[in-house]
């Protein structure tokens, strides 16, 4: 740390260079242009601009936190340097693109991007604006460190809230229009962004709210954990239950469809959470069980030429889960003696083998090869066929609740503790009398069963399935969501699914950069917050045992 302060100038220059690298990269790979059409504030401020100016601000903020003791003027100058370097690197990119034919190689350096970067002015004027704005935002970021903590937190929370509302503007607009009519919706939003005045109101209101909440939290003494009896606990769940039941009515068809996707990934996430989060077995071929569940359902129920039994959805459902769990045991047995990274690679191999087999002509007579299986009927209850997303929602909700309930009970059970013991140290666990074979296979089987359940719901949801739906990226997606949420934590898995599956579906612009963001997120989470956003207690304690110790001293 001392090193950092003594070479503070070098540090500032380095941070500026990093900020420049980030902004130039975001521009060169096309993110800025793609997001440049998405306004937070109508006509004023786009997501692309956020990408250009947030990195210097964030880096200046974090640097200022470290060198606060040097005084406000030096910090300001250093922050300005960060902003200036970042802006200058962007200007350099524009200049280079005007001077050399870079676009033949870097396909995303379009004239439109150049227009965005120079604010549709000449290079010199544009460069001045770029540098000016990045200096301003960087200084703003750094100065935030000098604002008293309570105000700072309120300010930051309000900024994030306003940006969030702006981000979801098209959806909120559509929903508000649906419930309160066009005119009310247009008071707050244009069809795709926040209006300026409401934005200021939202900002002020949320700032005030967060300020008073923070103040209240400071004043009140930490309450002792109230012990609730089971009945009180149940009563507390009622509003949540009602909310979940009427959710499809609030959301409308499109959003319910997205919620359904979130639900399916949540189901898989809960399963993988048992395998990776609790038992510590990093499984990268998890999609295989999803595929097995989906294909079993398809083969059993399809009314097309490939269907063998034309069973009903409900009769086939337990079979799918059982088949997947069995597959979990079968694929788990050979890898019982592998640990850590070898396990990851082998399971990845399994996943790929299953996908290639599903694609191949070898199994084509049974599961249709690349043409997949068609005509999978929708489930029906009491004569009503569940066709719309709103109706299917309840099937998925049921599955997710069941999975959440089972994982919650399992985690607190004897089995759950043996998993955690095994994750911590296999040898010690074995010495304590834990049957490793049975424990591991149980984790694989239950995880696979959840995934199979998700697959079994997935195939009637789409009514036709193809091998391409079951690629490695699904496994990575699920892994990302449980890591972002918090390994071993059930609420974390739910939040992870909402953020990592829901957001990309809502923000179609993200789709192209979804995997880039996931990759980045995995790295950033591991470096800064390995326990996830909503960590399980055990993991948090484990990862921060050192900090607590230090705090006590």
């Amino acid at each position: 740390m001392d090193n950092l302060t003594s070479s503070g100038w070098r540090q500032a220059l380095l941070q500026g260079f990093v900020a420049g690298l980030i902004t130039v990269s975001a521009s060169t790979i096309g993110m800025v242009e793609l997001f440049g059409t998405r306004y937070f504030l109508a006509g004023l401020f786009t997501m692309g601009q956020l990408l250009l100016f947030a990195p210097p601000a964030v880096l200046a903020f974090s640097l200022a936190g470290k060198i606060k003791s040097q005084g406000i003027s030096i910090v300001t100058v250093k922050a300005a340097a960060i902003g200036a370097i970042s802006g200058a690197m962007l200007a350099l990119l524009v200049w280079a693109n005007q001077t050399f034919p870079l676009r033949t190689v870097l396909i995303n350096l379009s004239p439109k991007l150049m227009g965005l970067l120079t604010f549709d002015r000449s290079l010199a004027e544009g460069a001045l604006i770029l540098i000016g704005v990045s200096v301003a935002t960087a200084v703003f970021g750094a100065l935030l460190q000098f604002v008293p903590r309570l105000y700072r937190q309120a300010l930051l929370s309000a900024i994030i809230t306003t940006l969030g509302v702006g981000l979801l503007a098209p959806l909120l607009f559509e929903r508000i229009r649906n419930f309160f009519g066009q005119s009310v919706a247009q008071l707050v939003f244009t069809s795709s962004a926040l209006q300026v005045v409401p934005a200021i109101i939202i900002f002020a209101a949320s700032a005030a709210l967060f300020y008073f909440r923070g103040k209240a939290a400071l004043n009140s003494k930490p309450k002792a954990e109230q012990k609730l009896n089971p009945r009180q606990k149940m009563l507390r769940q009622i509003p949540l239950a009602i909310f979940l039941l009427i959710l499809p009515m609030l959301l409308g068809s499109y959003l319910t469809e997205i919620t359904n996707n979130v639900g399916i990934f949540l189901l898989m996430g809960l399963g993988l959470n048992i395998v990776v989060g609790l038992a510590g077995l990093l499984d990268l071929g998890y999609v295989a069980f999803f595929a097995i569940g989906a294909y079993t359902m398809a083969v059993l129920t399809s009314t097309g030429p490939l269907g063998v039994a034309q069973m009903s959805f409900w009769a086939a459902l337990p079979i799918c889960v059982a088949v997947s769990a069995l597959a979990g045991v079968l694929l788990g047995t050979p890898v019982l003696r592998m640990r850590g990274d070898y396990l990851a690679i082998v399971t990845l191999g399994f996943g790929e083998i299953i996908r290639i087999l599903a694609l191949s002509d070898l199994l084509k007579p049974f599961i249709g090869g690349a043409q997949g299986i068609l005509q999978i009927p929708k489930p029906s209850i009491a004569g009503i066929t569940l066709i719309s997303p709103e109706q299917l929602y309840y099937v998925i909700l049921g599955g997710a609740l069941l999975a959440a309930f089972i994982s919650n009970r399992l985690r607190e059970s004897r089995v759950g503790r043996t998993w955690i013991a095994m994750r911590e140290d296999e040898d010690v666990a074995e010495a304590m009398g834990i049957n490793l074979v049975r424990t591991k296979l149980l984790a694989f089987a239950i995880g696979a069963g959840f995934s199979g359940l998700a697959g079994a719901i997935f195939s009637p949801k789409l009514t036709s399935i193809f091998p391409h739906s079951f690629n490695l990226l699904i496994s990575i997606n699920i892994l990302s969501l449980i890591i972002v949420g918090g390994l071993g934590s059930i609420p974390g898995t739910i939040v992870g699914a909402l953020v990592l599956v829901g957001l990309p579906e809502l923000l179609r612009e993200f789709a192209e950069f979804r995997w880039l963001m996931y990759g980045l997120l995995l790295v950033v989470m591991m470096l800064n917050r390995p326990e996830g956003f909503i960590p399980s207690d055990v993991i948090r304690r484990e990862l921060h045992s050192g900090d607590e110790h230090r705090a006590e001293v």
Partner: protein
Amino acid sequence: MKDRLKNLDLITAFLWLLRAAIILVVAWGTFKTLLSNPYTSRNWLDFIIFGIAQGSMYALIAIGYTLVYGVLKMINFAHGEFFMSGIFTATSALAIPLAASGFMDQHPLLSLLAIGLLSMLISVGIALLTERIAYRPLRHAPRLMPLITAIGASFFWQYYFRGLFGSQVRPFPTVAALQGSIPFLNTTVLKTHVLVVVVTVLALVALNFFITKTRAGMAIRSVSENKDVAALMGINVDRAISMTFATGATMAGLAGLLYALVYGQVHFFMGFIPGIKAFTAAVLGGIGNIPGAAVGGLLLGLFESVGPSLFLQGLGIPAFNQLKDVIAFTMLVLVLIFRPQGIMGERLAEKKA
């Protein structure tokens, strides 16, 4: 105790059964193929030659896995992306413009040299950056964490380069001087394949010299033996680890050029499958063992090229070439189950968890 023994026996029996079943299937398929004899000896020779060319490439990539594993005991999942980044950049930024200007046809050797150098340079840059940002801070973290950052880095770089150069396949320009083939035994060998093998052999010789004779190479070896003792001997461990990544990435960058020459195209996703296959090769040869990586690569290339025709066809599998990748993955699984120390059998720390 009794219960545990019973369990273990069951598992062992299961594994033995699996082993026997696979050997039986392979033997049966081979027998049937040889019986019906659909190929001439010349066909087989062609398969073998292609296998050697392909295997050389795997060998070069596998060295990166093995080196990093030797030093950090970590599977560098992003290594396939180091391989991709170099040649994808070199093709887009250098090879295509050079070919378009006609320079490539006038000075093929010089052009290929420049393309190869750029490829290696970019691969090394990406490798050093990844190591510095994503791996170094986690060097003492639980083992799962660097593996997860490696997966993250891998996807990040894939889609980063997709953003830079586009998602479409870029054809690698044909080099006039490398067209055609040379007679060899009773068949002919493509000139590109000859070049691939020659370059690989030269690279392996250079690598061997670097690792055994230079100070940097000795630093790498000592760090892979024991980091703490190496540090006590005055070796800068961080620098030695960076050097390890750089060496592996140099080989990967070179392998990228060979890939582009053999397959004639590059794209952002090209690193993934060769990456896993090269990892298989490294495991096959005995991970952590440099000659092992070379042997493993060669063997895997041969298996992949000969295997489908040798035993899958005999089993009467329709369109058996679709299952080519399954062979590599199955081999990976089998080696890890039955002989995790690999062919070259250097002792593998059993308890690395």
